[in-house]
């Protein structure tokens, strides 16, 4: 029987000097679902992604991905297990063409990588930019290419860190359509996003992080009603007074 969670985080802690960025986070991402991670700026969302993706290996606790303990593994090992991620600020490879950006992200033994890359680019109407350097793309296009790059390995779980930040509304719609398609195909996704209408529309479950701790978990409607969540976003005041 398949495990219910593709990602399970237990007691994840991370300190930067004396500052506690994550204070014992417990979290699960269910298979085939879109899980939202929201919280005010500086609440530890990206720090959590850094730990899960292996880019920060100083965190303590436990992280299980698809049955494997991955805390302390290098990113390339975690990617090989089937996890992909995008970055908050675009990390498209500037001196490589769009096609090269995608090909370099494919599995080395994937003989159909080029076809797959062209298909993905066609889906987001970037096929004409195939030989354009990454640095010559608009910021929104760079974010899209970064997202497509992750798809080249058909990962089981994708961590999306504000994928629509700086992206124009047209491209943003394309992006969310892609996210929906991926979920329909069985991919699990975890999404950091500040646009609450997107979280409400896409996410099956939402975690709210504040000052390095999970303060609420549930559907978007449930967490929206949580007084702790309201306080985290708007300060400790009575809702009716705001």
């Amino acid at each position, binding site marked *: 029987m398949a495990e219910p969670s593709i990602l399970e985080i237990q007691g994840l802690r991370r300190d930067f000097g004396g500052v506690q960025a994550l204070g014992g986070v417990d979290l699960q991402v269910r298979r085939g679902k879109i899980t939202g991670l929201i919280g005010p700026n500086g609440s530890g969302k990206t720090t959590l992604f850094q730990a899960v*993706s292996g*880019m920060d290996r100083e965190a303590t606790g436990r992280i299980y991905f698809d049955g494997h303990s991955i805390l302390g593994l*290098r*990113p*390339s090992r975690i*990617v*090989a297990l089937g996890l992909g*991620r995008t*970055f908050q600020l675009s*990390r498209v*490879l*500037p*001196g*490589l063409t769009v096609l*090269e950006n995608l*090909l*370099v*992200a494919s*599995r*080395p033994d994937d003989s159909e990588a080029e076809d797959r890359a062209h298909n993905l680019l066609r889906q987001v109407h970037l096929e004409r930019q195939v030989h354009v350097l*990454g640095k010559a793309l608009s910021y929104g296009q760079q974010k899209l290419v970064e997202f497509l*790059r992750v798809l080249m*390995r058909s990962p089981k779980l994708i961590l999306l860190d504000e994928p629509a930040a700086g992206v124009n509304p047209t491209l943003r719609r394309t992006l969310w359509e892609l996210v929906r398609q991926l979920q329909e195909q069985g991919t699990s996704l975890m999404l950091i996003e500040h646009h609450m209408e997107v979280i409400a529309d896409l996410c099956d479950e939402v975690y709210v992080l504040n000052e390095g701790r999970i303060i609420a978990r549930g559907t978007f409607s449930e967490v929206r009603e949580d007084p702790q969540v309201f306080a985290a976003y708007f300060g400790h005041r009575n809702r009716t007074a705001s």
Partner: protein
Amino acid sequence: MRYSDLGIGALLLFFSLLAPGFLNNYQLSFLLQVLMMVTLAQSWNLISGMTGYISFGHGVFFGVGAYTGALLLMGGAFWWVAILSAALLAAALALPLGLLTLRLRGPYFAIAMLGLNEVGRILANLWVDLTGGGDGIALSPLLSPVLATNYFSMLALAVLATLGMGWILRSRFGLELRAIREDEEAAEMLGIDTIRNKLIAFTASALLPGAAGAIYAFYTSFIDPSSVFLPALNVQMIVVVLLGGRGTLWGPVLGAVLLMSVQELTWAEFPALHLALLGLLMILLVLYLPDGLLGAWKRIGSRYG
């Protein structure tokens, strides 16, 4: 490799193969040095041009190769065994050095490599029993291969280095190295084993400089620590790649021909000034031609073509 690259390569190879038939010894010696610089620059291009890890001390592998070649030849080894051994020893040395130094990034790696070259020079000075210290090693002309043999050996290295670079540039491995140069963290997050790739590139980039060092020792018949662990050699290979175009196939070849020609014309007239000119050229290249002549040519071509 593209057909145009193969065409250019075949033409250069044809000329180089025939050269001993119509060049005098002075001219052939000059061409040998150009080929040596092509080999060194292509090797430097592999680690520094492709991955962005700027090595200021790749000459250390040249020096190790020179001493290995000279000592083995004196010990009675065949010249080609001595060359092969020099290459393998340089690569074997590069593996642990790479493990240590490739954790460093940017200027820290560059300085560590510069330090390694100095360590090599000092060790060669102090290990008198093996290296002869500051007195160096003089090879008997009876032991050393003749100029034509050295020339063809160096030609073989330059061809190997260029063919190797041509293959790497078109390969998945080359693409991964370029991804590391662009953004190492992002490359790792794309599933690229950055540590393994850098180590392979670094070790491979030591192989041919080791062999070139051995041939250089046979060619000059005399080596000492200052002549083979020469800081200026490190600067030369960097300038050659920057001048021609880093991360390109023909950049190091073009750069080597141009730089060696300019040096040949100026060093006899201005022995002290030619090093200063090298430094000045490096500054100008970094400021105004970061992609080298081939990069500038490509830019002009895309603007008007």
